[in-house]
């Protein structure tokens, strides 16, 4: 082992290494700055944008409070008010709460893992540009009096019958933004599992990493059902397929299920990463390790799971049988156990340590106080009979704001104060921090505490005004005053962030005396991120090894240099973080902008039903993505292996399950499979609610065509697997022939899939049954088309020498896609062809 120490560092070599690193990781200058993909730039843009949308949504919130300050107010018309509160909720949830998690994680995760960057920097950048365009599109609609107005959960039939394009903007704009969320989930899960520094076994991973991993996984199971729901909803709005229309066999409750299967876990998706900030900063300010690291991991995993068993508690008043309510009520109570554990761990850590007074800690304590209050009202509304009384009243508004402010906003601000030096090299002001905290804390409670009472006195949500004699006047006025006090506090915080900083504000190194590895960074941080990729031996390396920063500065860990002039970081094994590969990550590019803009075109043109432009934009987007993949991924390295320091040599190219690309495909397809299962759920939901489903009088697709489709597509799947094996065995001609035959069979498979419902004249506008069959066929067909593109991409790669027996990552990933797709085809054909035979 080459333990550092005795031999003195060569200063010239050190300077030379730093010069090379600076050159390789240089941030582009001038207008090219916007082509940057490094996490430190993209993360900051992401955060600023999310906060921009938050301020916009906050102003909408203030408009709501102005309107409700006095009874019978005419400040806003009823219709404008509907748009304002819908956009307030929508923007806060979809454009702030979830994206800010992605933003903070993209910015911080590499630092926490001692990595130079995340494994797919261009994917982060692509996600960011999607988010920016989609967010501006959704928010901008209100200036044209065209914003969605059906509430942030868009319930049909109100929203399916809504005449304007507001609902379409919501559906398509947010679907587009969900692309960014799933991209971030892929990036972050792979980041935590594969890009931890050598030696960071899972039991040494910073708690923030655990939370990010769990939240990333939750996104994969929570967002896709909403994407499936959005698809059905838009098919109904654009093409009159009656999924939610009772008169034609649909049911609005299907939307509620799909929405809340997403919506409730989403609450925890925004809560857990913010609480994760507390898990990082509380030990620092208590100046001791967290009391109960394993309990936090337990509670985070437990919360992640149980949060998926709560969705029906949003539907307690829809007339479901008591037994259904009972199960969800029980789970809603059970989730309080792991959530409580986290809070107790923080309290225990604070009690056992010597607390250092600071602004982040003040926010953390405020967060705990507010969150506990919100949690307790949560336990109240989880009890179905109480919920029957409080449902759709201001009590629920108070509850949800308490959980979101206590569970998300305050911890987030605490984290921003804490991590501000890592992002910028400056400290935020202590004095302004105290001011902003007390204004926000007091303002928040003045605004929302009375709402519990307003709700219990009977004031319903979403009313644009109320009569003067109902006893709500003083409470509403108090709430409105509180909202403005809160806004003042928030502006103090915004000013503090944006004000020009002087020498006095410069952060010294490890300003809070933290123990975790992110504080090893230089202040101000360098564009290259980590000077070298550290070797981890404990949870708090900076506390446990007084020499750690010196060793780091001298480049005595891994990858202290960039000799080949490439951006490099290390990937490691999932459990024990043994080095696997020296991963070369991509640098600045414009292709992500082209891909995002053209994909935006697909969604935006579809909103206005400009179908030719939609298709054109889709084709351009596909071309951009293919160009991106062809030029930027699975590049052949100039040598097989590289010495990364400390006597470790690792390969530069890996394929299959060791590679980050394989993991990205696996994770993406897991999410994709969940969306598909959302559609399958739709089919069986209709079966459940109808005494006769599939209806006897409506023809089905028969079993012959679905079986044919299965055989054709199964053969295409087998040929893809064959192509991978033959290519690896060096039989490249056989592999190429398989990659020619595969797509041909798949094209025939698409035709056979469609032939079933088509030849039996199934009209999707007639009834929910043909509509859901067509939706499944559409899904399977579109995925087959994607599979064909991938097969052809590999064929082209093989012919061009990009895909060789030695460098076969592409075909490995495509085969993985086809495994998932094969399952989709099996389930689709069994359901549409087989189920009518047995039901």
């Amino acid at each position, binding site marked *: *082992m080459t*333990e550092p120490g005795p031999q003195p560092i060569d200063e010239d070599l050190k300077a030379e290494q730093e010069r090379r690193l600076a050159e390789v990781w240089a941030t582009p200058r001038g207008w090219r700055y916007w082509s940057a993909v490094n996490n430190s730039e993209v993360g900051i843009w992401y955060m600023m944008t999310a906060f921009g949308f938050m301020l916009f949504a906050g102003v909408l919130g203030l408009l709501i409070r102005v309107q409700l300050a006095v009874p019978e107010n005419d400040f806003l018309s009823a219709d404008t008010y509907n748009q304002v509160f819908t956009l307030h909720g929508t923007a806060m949830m979809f454009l702030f709460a979830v994206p800010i998690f992605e933003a903070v994680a993209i910015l911080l995760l590499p630092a926490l893992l001692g990595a130079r960057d995340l494994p797919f920097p261009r994917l982060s950048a692509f996600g960011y540009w999607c988010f920016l365009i989609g967010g501006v599109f959704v928010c901008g609609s209100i200036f044209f009096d065209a914003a969605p107005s059906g509430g942030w959960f868009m319930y049909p039939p109100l929203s399916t019958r809504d005449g304007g394009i507001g609902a379409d903007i919501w559906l398509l704009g947010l679907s587009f933004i969900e692309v960014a969320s799933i991209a971030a989930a892929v990036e972050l899960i792979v980041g935590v599992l594969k890009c931890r520094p050598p*030696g960071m*076994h*899972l*039991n*040494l991973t910073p708690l923030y990493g655990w939370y990010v991993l769990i939240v990333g996984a939750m996104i994969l199971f929570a967002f896709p059902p909403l994407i499936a729901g959005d698809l059905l909803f838009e098919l109904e709005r654009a093409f009159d397929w009656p999924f939610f229309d009772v008169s034609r066999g649909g049911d609005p409750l299907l939307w509620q299920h799909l929405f809340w299967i997403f919506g409730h876990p989403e609450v925890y998706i925004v809560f857990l990463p913010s609480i994760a900030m507390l898990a990082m900063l509380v030990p620092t300010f208590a100046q001791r390790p967290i009391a109960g*690291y*394993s*309990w936090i*991991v*337990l509670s985070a*995993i*437990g919360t992640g*799971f*149980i949060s*998926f*068993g709560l969705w*029906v508690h949003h539907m307690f008043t829809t007339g*479901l*049988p*008591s*037994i*259904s*309510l*009972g*199960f*969800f*009520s*029980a*789970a809603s*109570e*059970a989730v309080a*156990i*792991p959530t409580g554990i986290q809070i107790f761990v923080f309290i225990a850590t604070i009690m056992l340590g010597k607390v250092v007074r600071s602004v982040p800690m003040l926010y953390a304590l405020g967060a705990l106080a507010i969150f506990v209050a919100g949690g307790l009202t949560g336990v109240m509304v989880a009890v179905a009979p109480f919920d029957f009384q409080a449902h759709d009243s201001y009590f629920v508004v108070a509850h949800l704001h308490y959980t979101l402010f206590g569970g998300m906003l305050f911890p987030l601000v605490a984290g921003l104060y804490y991590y501000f030096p890592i992002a910028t090299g400056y400290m935020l002001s202590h004095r302004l921090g105290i001011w902003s905290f007390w204004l926000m804390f007091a303002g928040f409670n003045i605004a929302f505490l009375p709402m519990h009472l307003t709700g219990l006195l009977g004031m319903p949500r979403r009313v644009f005004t109320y009569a003067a004699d109902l006893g709500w006047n003083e409470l509403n006025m108090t709430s409105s005053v509180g909202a403005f006090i809160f806004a003042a506090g928030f502006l103090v915080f915004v000013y503090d962030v944006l004000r020009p900083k002087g020498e006095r504000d410069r952060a010294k190194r490890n300003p809070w005396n933290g123990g975790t590895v992110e504080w090893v960074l230089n202040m101000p941080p360098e564009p290259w991120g980590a000077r070298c990729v550290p070797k*981890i*031996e*404990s*949870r708090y390396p900076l506390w*446990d*090894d007084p020499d750690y920063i010196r060793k780091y500065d001298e480049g005595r860990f891994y990858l202290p240099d960039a000799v080949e002039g490439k951006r490099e970081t290390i990937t490691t*094994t*999932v*459990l*024990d973080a*043994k*080095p*696997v590969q020296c991963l070369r990550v991509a640098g600045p590019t414009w292709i992500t902008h082209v891909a995002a803009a053209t994909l935006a075109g697909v969604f935006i043109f579809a909103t206005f039903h400009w179908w030719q432009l939609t298709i054109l934009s889709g084709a351009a987007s596909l071309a951009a993505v293919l160009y991106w993949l062809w030029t930027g991924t699975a590049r052949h390295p100039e040598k097989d292996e590289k010495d990364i320091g*400390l*006597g*470790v*040599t*690792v390969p530069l190219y*890996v394929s299959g399950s*060791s590679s980050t690309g394989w993991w990205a495909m696996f994770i993406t397809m897991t999410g994709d499979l969940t969306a598909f299962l959302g559609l399958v759920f739709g089919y069986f939901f209709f079966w*459940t*609610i109808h*005494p006769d489903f599939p209806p006897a009088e409506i023809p089905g697709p028969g079993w012959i065509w679905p079986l044919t489709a299965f055989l054709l597509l199964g053969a295409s799947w087998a040929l893809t697997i064959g192509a991978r094996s033959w290519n690896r065995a060096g039989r490249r001609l056989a592999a190429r022939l398989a990659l020619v035959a595969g797509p041909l069979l798949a094209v025939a498979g698409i035709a056979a899939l469609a032939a079933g419902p088509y030849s039996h004249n199934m009209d999707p506008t007639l009834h929910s049954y043909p509509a859901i069959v067509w939706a499944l066929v559409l899904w399977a067909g579109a995925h087959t088309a994607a599979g064909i593109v991938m097969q052809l991409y590999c064929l082209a790669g093989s012919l061009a020498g990009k895909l060789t027996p030695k460098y076969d990552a592409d075909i490995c990933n495509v085969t993985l896609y086809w495994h998932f797709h094969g399952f989709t085809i099996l389930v689709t054909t069994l359901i549409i062809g087989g189920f009518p035979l047995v039901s």
Partner: protein
Amino acid sequence: MRTEDHQQPETGHETGTDLWRVIAAPSIWAVHFLVCYVVGAVYCEKAGRSVTLLPVQWIVGFATAVALALVALLIRSLWKVRGRSVATQNYSFSGNIPQERHRFLSHVALMLCALSIAAIVFGTIPAVILETCR
């Protein structure tokens, strides 16, 4: 602090408790929960709201028995980890060696078993209390 960590890159597989095993118990809860919910919802939708819940109660009871038995099996195998892997004669699991990672994940998995049992029992209560599909 121990520094026995492997220095050589190993792409080979890692042994001991992994993440799949950690999420096994909550996954059992999830399946139990879904089975109970789906059975209850479908039965009450098809049979009408005035009928007795008896068949659902039997199925939920059976599902609970199976789920608890599976978690018990998991607990049995995890329980052994404490004794078997105590290479260093303590129960520490914050060290930088694969055994301690193994012990740590086993410990978390064990605690998740306890949480899952609580959640499974919680989920059974409605079927015990309610009598009809109302």
